[in-house]
């Protein structure tokens, strides 16, 4: 089974803890990485890629020291290794301009406002991971538990 990763980036440890606690339901099928800065996230992602594994999803905060979440998203979208990686901007204070920039120049997939609702977050992650698995043509049966059935069905209908 291919290893999938969810990378979480937030400079506030308490927020990072709360986020990863909410992601535990996915942990039997994907690996979760916690990062406290954009730089660290990038290093981890490169390592995942070097190991031949997949960065399926990046969840990042916007306002952080040194580099912002949008910086990271832009860097990611410009890198062919992470062409299929899905992205969520999870933030309480991205300005209108930041958000537009994230969508237009970094192909942001989803925007979630802090404080997040666990159910919404789960649903969004399921959809995005399903799309990632399909985009990459991975063996989806092994991830069945965490995939979004309707996305999956729609896709199967299209292809058959």
């Amino acid at each position, binding site marked *: 089974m291919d290893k999938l990763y969810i990378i979480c980036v937030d400079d506030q440890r*308490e927020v990072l803890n709360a986020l990863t606690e909410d992601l535990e339901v996915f942990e039997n099928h994907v690996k979760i990485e916690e990062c406290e800065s954009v730089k660290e996230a990038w290093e981890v992602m490169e390592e995942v890629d070097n190991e031949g594994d997949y960065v399926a999803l990046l969840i990042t905060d916007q306002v952080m020291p040194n580099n912002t979440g949008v910086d990271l998203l832009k860097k990611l979208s410009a890198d062919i290794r992470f062409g299929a990686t899905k992205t969520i901007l999870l933030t309480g204070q991205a300005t209108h301009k930041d958000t537009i920039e994230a969508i237009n120049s970094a192909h942001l997939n989803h925007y979630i406002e802090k404080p997040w609702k666990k159910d919404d977050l789960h649903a969004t992650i399921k959809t995005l991971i399903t799309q990632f698995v399909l985009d990459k043509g991975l063996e989806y049966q092994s991830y069945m538990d965490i995939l979004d059935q309707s996305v999956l069905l729609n896709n199967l209908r299209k292809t058959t």
Partner: protein
Amino acid sequence: MEGKVSFNWVKQEFFSDESKKLTLRKGEVLLDPHHKNTRLFLVTKGKFLGYLNDAELGNYPVFEASENKFIGVYSYFSDDHLSYSKVVAVEDSEVYYYDKVREAHTPEEMQRLSQFHISIVVNELYARQYFAKKMAQDKYNDSQRLLKAEKMSTLGQMAAGVAHELNNSIGVIDGSMGRLSDFINKCVDSHNDQHLREVFEIGKKGQEISSEEARNIRKQYEKIKGLTDGQIRKLSKTGIPADEVIKTLQKDPSSADRINEFWEVGCTLHDMEIAAKHSTHVVRSVKQLGVTEHQWSKDVNINDTITEAMVISKNLTKRVNTTVFLDEYIPNTEACPGQLVQVWINLVKNGIESMLSSQTEDPQIRIASGHDAKNIIITVTDNGPGIPEDIKQRIFEPSFTTKVDGLNFGLGLGLAVVQRIVTEHDAVIEVNSEPGYTEFTVKIPLIS
């Protein structure tokens, strides 16, 4: 006498007779409205203002005349020779006059003076128009300033309202936290397990391991069979030495989840407590910002105001390398804490925003307090691009800004407000700036 009709010639021929010189003290009236005037005055020293009287506006200025400017132009040239404005010396002044009725000049001289009339009139027209424009501009600026002040005070009141509402909720959360914490402590005790008790206590200190360190520690757990990814990820960030945990796991392989759970409960309590404290602090500070009638106190610890400001601006300060140095020995002084908090926020915010917008490498901001025998001295230093020479003079003007967009919470009201507050404290603010180094220094006098 042939030659060009110049101002100097006119001045010398017609406005240099010592017997026709008037000296006026500041405040003395040169001309009164509706009085007959056949004199043309030339100011040689000082300054005059001409006023019109209006039932609604009272006396309002319509022209000013300083050295080498003429006064009485209207009455002098008009048919009825009636002055229409009141002309008052605003400084100790001197004028020479030429009286068209009483003076005897040769026809040639008169002829030549009349050549100069048009120039006097045109100049007068220009001066009045310029004055009118200047007055209008000042009025416009005033109204803009008022508008801004009003907006800010509305914002402050709104902020205070929101803060008040939040304060109640946070009070509940904070109080409940305490009770919940007591209860959980009892639950942990009831397990009668010294080891888990310790794990819980470690958790209550919060996560002390960085995500990067946790990733390194993880390698030790990955060697152990039977642990899931999730268990490993969590054990790695507890901060409990890995060899200790591994020993426990060898005795009881099922204890991984319990260790994680007890640590997590402790850590959650810690995080919630921190969050509640932070919220309480922010709310209190925002409330203070909204107070329009600021409370003065004789016994203010300036360091407290700095700490408060840093809490409110945490969102900004975390984007740069921030240092706070507080001189513990500064004496308390008379001040308005709420206002001072605003000053620090503004200075810090300005520094950080200028560094972020110019993408300064390794941006740093430092706020420090200190004192000497007479003053408390606070400095705010950044390593941003500095303030360009040409705008240094203007930064304390209201409505001056270099900001185009960006994160702006409206808490800071600009350097003009800083200046006002500083002045109200009998303090001074200085700026020292070059590329890569900008320092604002505020000196607050100690009350003797």
